[in-house]
């Protein structure tokens, strides 16, 4: 027989929280949490959807032999580790802020020593039926590197269409500098708009490329939508993004980084392990995703295709 002895600290049945209240409490917590979660989700989704408002269309393109046969850098690294100061100074800023950029419609002003100057709609400048994929190494002057599957057209094909005149020696490019679309423009980090340039022989070299896509799709805003330059044998900053102006001249264009610090950034900016940058040794590089560093190759490994462009040029002086 069970004898129940009630200690004085035992609560009596009527002191216990009723089941209804107990359940109510759960209900209350659930709904309160639900409310908070819903509000958070709404807040998050607003930003996320705003950021993701552009769906990147898949592109039709042909494969090419431009492929170093190395592991590709993961897509999320290529699209979220960016230097694009128009959107902010941290590597993560471009992917956070670039949703503000509206790459459609897009036009490029072509001027200077060309037969056919004028404002070109993106569609008239880039032959979307001729797209090809080229896998290039990308080497940043800061000492990191990637392997990127770009999609686009050779720069030479675009320039030929514009008809460079015989006196033209250089090509100057400009990036969009729109305060509303690019929060970084508010700060005088560089002399906006961003300007980069190549000699005409460099621009006509088979490797110089205009990219409009990345990893099989349209190029994301933070990577330079809707069209950017890719110059794989030069440091990354030469590969100017979101181009709004192409100008052919007979004078060496004043490039943004060269104006900002001429002792650090020359006009050529070829990848050269022999010539150190004042702040970063260029002898080695870290492939994004790897722990150790590897040796940097002369002209980023593209010497065979480009070394002849610099015969007779002192690369120590013309860095």
């Amino acid at each position, binding site marked *: 027989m069970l004898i129940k002895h009630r200690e004085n600290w035992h609560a009596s049945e009527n002191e216990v929280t009723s089941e209804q209240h107990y359940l109510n409490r759960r209900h209350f917590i659930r709904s309160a949490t639900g409310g908070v979660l819903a509000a958070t989700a709404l807040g998050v989704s607003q930003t996320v959807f705003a950021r993701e408002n552009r769906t990147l269309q898949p592109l039709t393109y042909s494969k090419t032999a431009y492929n170093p046969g190395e592991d590709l850098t993961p897509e999320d*690294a290529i699209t*979220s580790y960016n230097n694009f100061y128009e959107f902010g100074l941290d590597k993560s800023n471009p992917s956070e802020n670039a949703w503000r950029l509206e790459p459609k419609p897009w036009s490029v002003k072509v001027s200077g020593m060309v037969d056919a100057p004028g404002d070109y709609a993106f569609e008239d400048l880039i032959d979307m039926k001729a797209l090809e994929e080229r896998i290039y190494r990308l080497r940043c002057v*800061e000492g990191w590197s990637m392997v990127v599957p770009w999609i686009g057209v050779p720069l030479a094909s675009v320039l030929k269409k514009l008809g460079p005149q015989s006196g033209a020696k250089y090509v100057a490019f400009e990036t969009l500098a729109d305060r509303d679309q690019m929060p970084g423009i508010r700060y005088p980090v560089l002399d906006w708009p961003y300007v980069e340039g190549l000699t005409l022989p460099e621009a006509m070299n088979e490797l110089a490329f205009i990219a409009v896509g990345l990893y099989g799709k349209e190029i994301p805003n933070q990577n330079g939508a809707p069209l950017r330059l890719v110059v794989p044998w030069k440091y990354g900053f030469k590969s100017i993004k979101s181009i709004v102006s192409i100008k052919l001249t007979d004078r060496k264009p004043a490039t943004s980084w060269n104006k*900002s610090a001429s002792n650090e950034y020359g006009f050529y900016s070829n990848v050269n392990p022999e010539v150190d940058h004042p*702040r*970063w040794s260029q002898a*080695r590089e870290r492939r994004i995703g790897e722990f150790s560093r590897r040796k940097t190759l002369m002209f980023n490994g593209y010497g065979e295709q480009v070394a002849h462009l610099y015969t007779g040029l002192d690369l120590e002086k013309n860095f």
Partner: protein
Amino acid sequence: MALFSQKNLRRYGKPFVFALFLIPAVWLIYNWVQAYAGAPHDLGFNPQETSNRFTGDWALRILLLSLALTPLSLLTGSPRWILFRRMTGLFAFFYVCLHITSYIWLDMQFDWSELWTDVVKRIYITVGFTALLCLLPLAITSTAGWVRRLGAKRWQKLHKLVYAVGVLAVIHFIMMRKGFQFEPLIYGAVLAGLMVFRLPMVKSWLRRRTQQKPINAGV
């Protein structure tokens, strides 16, 4: 004010502040363990770069904080802030050590020859290295024993080196960034602001205002 009595601050405040200062280091180490295990982490796609910047940022912040304690005690007329000065300074040194470890180990992978080239050739690293050399004797002589051995006067004189460390650290940061950037300049402005309190006239005016005796070292 009994809550913030010297006794309570010593007994509870110090361990509390100590734990607070450890948080960034714990965060960093936790994330590296995660990264090493192949688990999700917050170090981004270039963890070495993240580590260098993170440890440098905290070293500079805590260094500036250590420089802010004397002005704070002058402004509030309370010497209690000085209780935390040595700990704060040593934590700045601790984060400088992490900064250098991150640079030598994670970034340079113990490539000593290249490291030396960096120190000699790259001015911003030379500046940073000089700051470290200035900070070293301060960390070593931070004990009560060293205050006694040197004598308060000489000890204080030596520890004025911390101003040089502050200036060098800010220059190191400004030079590290590309282009014209505000962030390092903000640190520079804070440092300049803190230096104003070291001007004899400002100092004596504050002392008169708060009727405070000069603060002794090594409290």
